[in-house]
């Protein structure tokens, strides 16, 4: 088999560049859709957090108040609040409309890598390089976290919340899942430093990417390996991975400037999306549609499975 024929275009994969936005905030450290996917947040190396409209690609608001580059952000379910974390060791809760700092939470001993709201935006969970996850109460004005999860023995690189579960990826090569309902902690040993963890949309699997350039899909309840995805490069940088909105594909950033997209079940590479020549730092998959945001250096790209015209019509439909 000399040259296998290219696969038929999968309409479910975002491979058409709809837009490329220069965020003008230095390197974009993270790009995140909001809950319904109408907006996205870009975390800049110039200490600012910016809110953008997905459909128009224009800047809506800039949130400044961090003392160092912003590393991660999340939006609440009702779009009324944002949280962001930064290298300045703080977690900030923002009021979306006014752009004011609602709460600035100090307590981490090092830069805060990741932050996440829980489902009802009552708790912010932040993971830091100090190896601790702190649960901040958004309802009270207390400056102390509700609880500190310090089981990790190295930097927390990624953190996700789904319902009553908290998933953390740690540089000590372990994926920890805290089950609040059961009161249990499940530790899965991956051995290579974890860069990003994800829940699948059905909540049955966890996806973890590690620095051995491998993504692993683990069964959540047993910890068994369901799939392994390789081919991309992830050896030194903390890059994102995600699952598509319908759990059909596994996506990962790569250091070679591509976004790799594997079929979840088959494990075969479905798409190698060339984004640029630099490292694809961050990405975010639209919660419902086939839209993908990628961040490379100072720019954010929006990818879709269809061209802009059809996109527009789709927009009006919804």
């Amino acid at each position, binding site marked *: 088999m000399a040259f296998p024929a290219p696969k038929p275009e999968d309409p479910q994969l975002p491979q058409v560049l709809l837009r490329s936005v220069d965020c003008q905030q230095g390197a974009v450290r993270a790009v995140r859709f909001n809950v319904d996917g109408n907006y996205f947040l870009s975390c800049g190396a110039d200490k600012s957090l910016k809110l953008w409209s997905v459909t128009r690609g224009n800047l809506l608001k800039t949130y400044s108040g961090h003392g160092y580059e912003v590393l991660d952000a999340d939006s609440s379910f009702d779009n009324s609040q944002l949280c962001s974390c930064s290298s300045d060791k703080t977690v900030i809760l923002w009021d979306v*409309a006014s752009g004011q700092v609602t709460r600035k939470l100090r307590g981490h001993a090092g830069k805060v890598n990741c932050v996440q709201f829980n489902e009802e935006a009552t708790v912010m969970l932040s993971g830091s390089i100090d190896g601790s996850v702190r649960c901040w109460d958004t309802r009270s004005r207390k400056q102390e976290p509700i609880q500190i999860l310090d089981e990790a023995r190295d930097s927390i690189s990624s953190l996700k919340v789904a319902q009553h579960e908290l998933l953390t990826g740690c540089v000590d090569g372990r994926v920890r899942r805290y089950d609040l309902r059961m009161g249990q902690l499940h530790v899965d*040993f991956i051995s290579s430093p974890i860069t990003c963890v994800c829940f699948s949309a059905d909540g049955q699997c966890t996806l973890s990417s590690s620095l051995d350039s491998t993504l692993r899909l683990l069964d959540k309840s047993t910890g068994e390996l369901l799939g392994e995805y390789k081919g991309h490069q992830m050896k030194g940088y903390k890059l994102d991975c995600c699952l598509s909105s319908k759990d059909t594909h596994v996506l990962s950033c790569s250091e070679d400037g591509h976004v790799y997209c594997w079929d979840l079940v088959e494990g075969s590479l479905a798409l190698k999306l060339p984004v640029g020549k*630099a490292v694809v730092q961050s990405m975010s998959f639209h919660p419902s549609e086939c839209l993908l945001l990628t961040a490379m250096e100072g720019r954010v790209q929006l990818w879709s499975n269809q061209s802009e015209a059809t996109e527009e019509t789709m927009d009006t439909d919804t």
Partner: protein
Amino acid sequence: MAADSEREGEDFVSFGTPLEPLEEDEPLKKPVPIYEQTVVDEKGRYQRFHGAFTGGFSAGYFNTVGSKEGWAPSTFKSSRQSKAEQQKAEQQKARPEDFMDEEDFGEHGIAPSEITRSAAFQSGHRDSASEKARAVNAQSSLIPGDTLLEQIIAPAKSSIGVELLKKMGWREGQGVGPRVKRKPKKQKTEGGPRVYGCAIIPIGSEGSEEEDDDEFVPENVTFAPKDVTPVDFTPRLGLQGLGYRGLDPGLALGQGSQHINLFDPHFDSKGKLFGGKQKQRRHKGVAGQGFGVGALEDEDEDIYLRDSMSRYDTEIKDEEPTDGLFGWTAPQEYSKKKDSNKDAAYIGKILEGFTLAQKPEAEKTSFPPPRLPRDYRPVRRFNPGTFVAHVSGVSPALAHALKTSRGHMVKDEPQTSRHQLDSGQRRTLIGEEALEGPSSVLDLLKPADRERLKYIRNSKAGLQAQPPKDSSSQSALRPPRPVTPPTISVSQREQDQALSAWKGQTPTQTFKPFEKNPEKQERYEQYVGRLSQGDKDALERSLEPEMTEWERSREREEFVRASILYRPSSSFLSSRFTRGKQQEDDDTVEVNVDEQGDVDDKQAAVNMKMFGQLTRETFDWHPEKLLCKRFNVPDPYPGSSLVGLPKVKRDKYSVFNFLTVTESRETSAPPPPKALEVKKSRWDVSQEMKDSDALSEMLSDARNQSSETDPDQSGTQDQTLALPAPDTKDQRSSSRTETKEKSKKESDSDSSDSDSDSDSDSDSEAEEETRPPMDVFKAIFSSSSDEKSSSESEAEEEQKKDEQERGHITHTLFNVSAAPPSEATPSEPTPTAAATQNTAPTASQTEEQESFGPKLPPPSSTLSVSSRGPLPPSLDEKPKKSKDKKHKSKKDHKHKKEKRKKKQKKHKHKGKQKKIKKEESSSDSDSEETAQISTEELLRRLKTVRSQCPL
């Protein structure tokens, strides 16, 4: 959504009025510190805390002492009333006192408030009498004109009594009293002896005058009584003696033309102040002038005065026969005084210069001493029991007294003084109980230290250079005891120590040192029990008599050691320390339960991809209650107060507590022969995985053999199995040189499909080769970036082969440039990515090496080396392409064809035979010996899993 998107740019709807923005960083209002607080009085003036003249320290509640509130801070008082009053007061005129400080009213102020006569009782006239008195006294004052100053400042006013007297006909200058018949001219102030102090000059000496003057006095003429000068009781300020008067400037300033009577001892400069009523006489002594007088001596007045002889009498007149001395300058005879003569007449002769006292001296009553009883002896009798035995160092006088009183002196003990007794002896003297605990500091030391100390002491004292024997040295401290048998090897001192430790202790001891040997333990307990009873021969008696001598000596030693070692802590330290509330188990430390797992096993499982049971650990984890509440989840452990992971006890001093994952693995691995190892961290895990320990290797081998998925694979496995030693050795050596290199090598071996031979080849090659010219890199890198843009399947094939080449060359590159070991932090981005993709500029790399964890990508690649050759579909092209998809696909096809041609050319050029893999995914698999599971197997497993647990 479209409607949303149209609006969303401009307007946000906001409800209500926003609260004040919360300033997160703003600190709370700080209370004013004490040193910045001020105290003001009721008029709002600052009060000094530290008045230099009126006190010096603040007192009370912030200097409230002395204020109206006193010690307590004032409570709230409505100011409404006072405001009304204040308004009223403001209408009145302000007095100067309102603006004066309180100090001004004090004793030293400018307006001292004292009790004075009111204006109604003050007359406007000057009190000439008091004025005169003051003037008279001013003569004797050191500063001449200070009365003038007084007059200017405070005019003296005559009192109401003076006014009344004047109304009654009294005139100034007259005395007070009934009018007398006498001649005023003859009035003479002959006061007899001058009296200082409190004695009042006798008023009027009419009788003598009458006696003296036998002049005619008209009967109907009466005179006012002679005025007297009131004595001004000014306190003496100087240090001069009584009667001292300072310089009289009046004499010096031209009043010298007075007649001087050399013979009148009553001449007084005071006299001239009484105007013409008195004779102007002056005692003018020349004595002393020629010798110079001190500034404060009283004969100083005529230094600049020219004495004229006209002022002296030229002949002795008879005008003053009164003194009856006729020129003799002897002390005046007071025989003239009638009364005194009278007094002396019946008492006896009076010494010259003395007068009779006015008051009789108070008689002193003296009482006789009590009579001593006849049998009194001035000796105290002591209690015979305590005293006599040990009295020592008494003074010789007392001893003598004792001897005389008792007839004998107690014989002195050899000790000379009680200060030479030690504390123990003193204790026995007064009959005190011995303190618990060691009797001296030496007991707290180890025997060896004690020996050393003793040795030092002895050698210092110059006794013996040789280390002293135990028994001899301690005999100095302790009372002598029966000689121990020479066979006993245990030092007597240790026995004593054990004895002192156990003495008085209840033998209920918990520690059983000889638990394994019940008989021995019993003997030991017996020994301890005897020790606690204070038995000195406890050791000998508790030993079994039928034992051999060797056994006995050994056991003796053991018992003493054990009894010292496990002496009751209460005796050891009870007098110095209190016991801790809870026993600390110092052998264990609390750690989280999740630290218990064995990493090696897990690592092996990971290498085998046996995720699941082996790699999973599940712990009970207690979330905070509030967290559960916020997550709308019932608390899984409702009754528990624990938060987080439960702790388990673990050996505190275990090495594994301080080892991280990699370190523990390193300890399992054979140590590298050379210490060129770079600092490693957890980041080495991916690389270190290859340094597979024997266990994982064996496991993997066994597993692979048993699974037998694929003959091809098993073949490679056999190969690795056949030569595991050189493989690992090889890898170890490479890891020794550089971790960077290792990562390189991993990528290398990724592509080389676990071909250890080629690895070693490349290694040796690298050592021989020097750095290849830059052109080689350029060509390779550009071509590789070309390949990236080709279609996926193609790209993968190409990539694989390309990586092989690249790995080969970069390997050599890093062998050459791997000089600085400090640079080789394991978290460094893989050099392959950096070098081949040209994404990460080296500057940003070094910058980010300081941080831990997976790094953030460099902010911009514009600084980086621009890649050569046709770029992969860049961003600039993208918008165009997205407009027309077909066009793009065509383009892509064209592109691909070009690539293919290029590649083929290159392949030919390189002359490398490429094996085309059957499956695309297998091309990605690493070369790790243990990771040999094919994609098919994965798929198969995935499917089985899926089928087993339908999602």
